[in-house]
């Protein structure tokens, strides 16, 4: 898992390598300093018979000062390199995640919530960045301190060194056991955190529903419960973690005492030429060795905690779109004809009840097709198969005479323009939103599509015109205005197939008719598929597809459907009742 992480140091390799090198030099120099100190105490001060040696004091002393500066320099360098590298890794991770998300298919998008993706891109990446920085600094520094101190002790006094070594397994054992036991609790805790955040998000988004239904108390209970879960599991994990410090202190203390006693014994018996200055040295080394082990353990702990975050990050990066480009994609869509052959579709594999059942229809290029059906009859699902937003579960969908799976996805979606039911305008200007349809669109082209979509009037009344500000989600435009801007945006693509998924529901009938008339005269060769609730929006289509519970009930002209389909007739009559007596005026309104 972490080896994979190092691949993300791309562009920051040099810093990633230099940081541990600098840290190594810093650590080695650091170990030498106490050595010089013991030299001064042992041989510089002089006792009894041996006279004091000022040369040793000055030489060693100056060397110590120089070494301290050398270590400072490399310490700073390693800090600079490590932060540069880790900031770079974080940047690369965010970039890869974002790019990966951009390749997701609709069904991939459905399986991640926005809030979870955003958390992964920010909080999780921050955690990993911290861990990475520690890895290339402390994770090198600590073992180097450990090894050099141990080696130097071995040279001076191998028996003391053995004592050091004897303590290491205890310390490591304690740390490993603690981490292994705490990790599963941390994992659960993170899950509980997700749940807590979900409650907050839902409450903020649906605060009006909460207040209207007076469910504040229930919501609070819900929150308290997940808040309690977070606390319980944090406590369970931390209860284990806090054992580490006192246990390490005990081991350190024991090591100190044994070294002092053994050291004193050696000094007295003059074993291996041990001197009293060495005792201080050994104790300092003991501290260095054991504290470096503790440091390693702290870093490992952080790494363990960030492993959960890293897993969540890689999940995003490694989720591959389940819609992939074919090997030799076709880059040209011949025309706007569409064929459905025995198409079945369901959103998930487990779902046994398909949303679409055995769809067989043929649409010729340039036709206008109306799709009509009750709520949840599968209209939106049907059209999403045309531009391969989803793949059919069974059967085949053909566009321009070829299976949609043969096309290059970019080409296909460029030629099939869909105005989604839940459509979105992005923060920016009217112009920046329109440019989504075609980056290189000229001012004239933009005005033309706005006119086609009957959106020119309200844009022109705005002082800033095309540069009028659009706020996130287009909240500063009314529902009908948003819909017309979305249609204009889709038209800029000059597609071979244009699909409107209930895109004029908030537009009044007269304007709706005007838009359809414009389609007829300006883009006659484009296949137009219109999903609508209003019969008036589709009754003049070449053919009407009547869907019910995922099945085709009828497919024919308005007149044919009126004749053969009772439900259609009934609905038409009920809808026309209001409009029929006024239909003359409607026509008037059009002119």
């Amino acid at each position, binding site marked *: 898992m972490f080896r994979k992480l190092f691949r993300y140091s791309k562009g920051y390799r040099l810093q990633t390598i230099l940081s541990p090198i600098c840290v190594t030099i810093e650590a080695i120099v650091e170990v030498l300093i106490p050595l010089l100190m013991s030299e001064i105490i042992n041989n510089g001060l002089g006792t009894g018979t*041996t006279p004091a040696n000022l040369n040793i004091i000055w030489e060693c002393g100056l060397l*110590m000062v120089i070494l301290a500066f050398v270590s400072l320099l490399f310490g700073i360098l390693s800090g600079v390199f490590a932060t540069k590298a880790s900031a770079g890794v974080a940047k690369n991770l965010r970039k890869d995640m974002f790019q990966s998300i951009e390749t997701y298919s609709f069904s991939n998008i459905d399986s991640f919530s926005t809030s979870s993706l955003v958390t992964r891109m920010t909080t999780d990446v921050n955690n990993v960045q911290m861990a990475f920085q520690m890895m290339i600094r402390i994770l090198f520094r600590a073992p180097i301190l450990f090894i050099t101190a141990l080696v130097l002790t071995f040279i001076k006094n191998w028996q003391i060194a053995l004592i050091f070594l004897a303590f290491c397994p205890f310390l490591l054992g304690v740390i490993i056991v603690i981490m292994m036991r705490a990790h599963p609790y941390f994992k659960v805790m993170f899950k509980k955190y997700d749940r807590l955040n979900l409650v907050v998000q839902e409450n903020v988004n649906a605060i009006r529903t909460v207040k209207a239904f007076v469910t504040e108390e229930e919501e609070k209970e819900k929150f308290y419960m997940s808040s309690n879960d977070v606390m319980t599991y944090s406590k369970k994990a931390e209860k284990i973690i806090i054992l580490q410090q006192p246990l390490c202190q005990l081991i350190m203390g024991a090591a100190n005492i044994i070294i002092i006693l053994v050291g004193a014994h050696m000094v*007295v018996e003059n074993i291996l030429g041990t001197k009293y200055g060495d005792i201080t040295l050994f104790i300092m080394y003991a501290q260095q060795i054991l504290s470096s082990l503790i440091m390693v353990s702290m870093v490992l702990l952080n790494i363990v905690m960030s492993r959960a975050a890293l897993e969540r990050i890689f999940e995003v990066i490694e989720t591959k779109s389940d819609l992939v480009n074919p090997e030799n994609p076709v880059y040209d869509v011949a025309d706007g004809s569409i064929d459905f052959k025995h198409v079945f579709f369901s959103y998930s594999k487990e779902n046994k009840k398909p949303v679409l059942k055995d769809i067989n229809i043929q649409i010729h290029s340039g036709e206008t097709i109306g799709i009509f059906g009750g709520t949840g009859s599968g209209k939106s699902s049907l059209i999403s198969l045309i531009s391969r937003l989803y793949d059919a579960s069974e059967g085949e969908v053909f566009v321009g005479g070829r299976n949609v799976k043969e096309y290059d996805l970019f080409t296909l979606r460029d030629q099939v*323009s869909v105005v989604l039911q839940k459509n*979105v305008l*992005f923060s920016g200007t009217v112009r920046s939103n329109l440019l989504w349809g075609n980056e290189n669109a000229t001012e004239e082209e933009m005005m033309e599509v706005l006119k086609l979509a009957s959106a020119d009037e309200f844009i022109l009344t705005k002082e800033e015109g095309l540069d009028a500000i659009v706020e996130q989600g287009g909240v500063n435009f*009314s529902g009908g205005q948003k819909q017309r801007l979305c249609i204009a945006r889709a038209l800029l693509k000059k597609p071979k197939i244009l699909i409107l998924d209930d895109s004029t529901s908030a537009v*009044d009938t007269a304007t709706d008719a005007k838009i359809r008339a414009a389609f007829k005269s300006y883009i006659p060769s484009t296949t137009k598929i219109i999903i609508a609730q209003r019969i008036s929006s589709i009754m003049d289509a070449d053919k009407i597809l009547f869907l019910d519970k995922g099945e085709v009930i009828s497919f024919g002209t308005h007149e044919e459907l009126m004749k053969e389909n009772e439900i259609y007739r009934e609905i038409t009559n009920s809808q026309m009742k209001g409009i029929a007596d006024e239909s003359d005026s409607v026509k008037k309104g059009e002119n």
Partner: protein
Amino acid sequence: MPPMRGPAGAKVEHPFRIIKRVFQMIFHVHPIALYVVFALIIASSLCTTFALSFLSRIVDVLVNYLDAHGTFVGFDFKEILIPAFCMAGFYLLLAIFTYIYARIMMNISQDTLKKIRDDLFAHMESLPLRYFDTRSTGAVMSLYTNDVDALRQMISQSIPQILSSLFTIISVLVVMIIYSPVLTLITVTLTTILVIVTRFLTKRSGKFFLKQQRDLSRINGFCEEIFEGQKVVKVFNHEEKCNEEFEEINNGLEHSNYFANMFSSLVGPVANNIGYLSFALTTIIGALLFIHKPVLFGWTITLSIGQLSGYLAFVKNFSMPISQVSNQVNFVMMALAGAKRIFDVMDEKSEVDEGDVTLVNVRSDDELTECEEHTGHWAWKKYRDGQVTLVPLKGDVRFFGVDFGYDDKKIVLHDISLYAEAGQKIAFVGATGAGKTTITNLINRFYDVQDGKIRYDGININHIKKKDLRKSLGMVLQDTHLFSGTIAENIAYGKKNATREEIEKAAHLANADHFIERLPQGYDTYITGDGENLSQGQRQLLSIARAAIIDPPVLILDEATSSIDTWTESLVQKGMDSLMKGRTVFVIAHRLSTVRNSNAIMVLENGRIIERGDHEDLLKQKGKYYQLYTGAFELE
């Protein structure tokens, strides 16, 4: 109501006031425990100091026995065993104290954090809608993640760390002065340099940390918007463009992130190596003092070898806590910023609720009697002059000259007067922004009127308890929001203890039963992400079922059927009509076919009622409604 971003990354102005408040919260949860922790921290840092001081004693014992030939004469090992045992004792005590205070501190911090989260949430639920109008979801959510997290770091790590470091520094300093005041001077001088350098570095990084938080929130906002509209991105092949835009923001974050962390990462090596520098200088000067034994003002300044060895060990123990404290500085800065944001929310004023009239179920035989069970009849329970009176709930709502604006500068409703008599169906028609939804928001007191009066069954709605007022109004809101949970749970949202039968009945009434039964697990299908996989129409049907199950005395339908096909809508309407028979219904709709059979239709324009009457009346008036109906005028 354009969403505005909450103030981000504001500067912390009164850090001590915030720290005080954090401590107040801690003391509120555990009044005594923190004192115990203080005591234990002091005790454990004393233990560290004492344990180390035995080292110099042992070295001195050794040196004492050293004779002129460099051999030890008459040395008894027992003499150093006693100090060694003392040392062991102190280490044992240290471990015990450390464990106990860590354990207590863990409980304190976790309990305090839970309290902060819970208080924050409870307070948030009580805030008026105005609060939410001006903040994005992401901004509110980050209170619970980033800000509470920063506080966690401070309470559970920084506070004990800083406290124990401070006590260690003080006790080590005392011992150092006892050993050698001259050497202490060197150590203190170098430490002062260290503090100055650290302050410089943290100041620098602090500036970049603020910038980093801003960049972080920028990336947050960008990702939220793009991911939310990801399907549109796909449909328009806009992935590359988004990648480019993201790259730019991402690079900006990398820059501020690097500088913030770079400066703070230097604190470690600087503190560490200034420690070594001070170590080197004290060794030299200590050695010189030992040899030359200079006399200053009649004082011989010198020290024993044992004192020098011990002192040197202490120098290391002195610089370590200092660098530990300096490492915590950034965490504390971040935590203070987080705490400030949290306290700002907690200081927001809750919704005012001065009403005392409550809603009760009644049995209406001859006389009204209050009862527990649901009877389908309600009454308002008034307390006046110690007397309790029951006023039957009829659903008679009247507005008298109501003015309203979301802020004082811009009035959106002007002089609205209307009478909805019990059992009537009242419709509001008008362009987006004409004020239709606003009127219903005043009935349920999501907002309070600026001027004028609203009477509900003759009672000033300000006198009705908000909770009861809202319970009396079934609302189907413009935006359907579903909660994570099963379909059944979502339908029973306003009625926790509803039986499966009631749920199915409500679903049937809302005509939602057909599609629910076709879902893989039917009513037990789990909904996530606000019902992403359901169509808009299906979500609206669920929302209607949710209102139907509470069987409300008054119903408000705000564009409740806008995404439902007219065929299904007529079925839904039939169901709702039978449910609401004799009860008052307010309808807001875009589709005129939805409002046609209303008793009264109010046509709104720019916050004023310009026409009123039933369908026939309005057509005869040949005004705006007529134009709308005939399509001569556009509803925008």
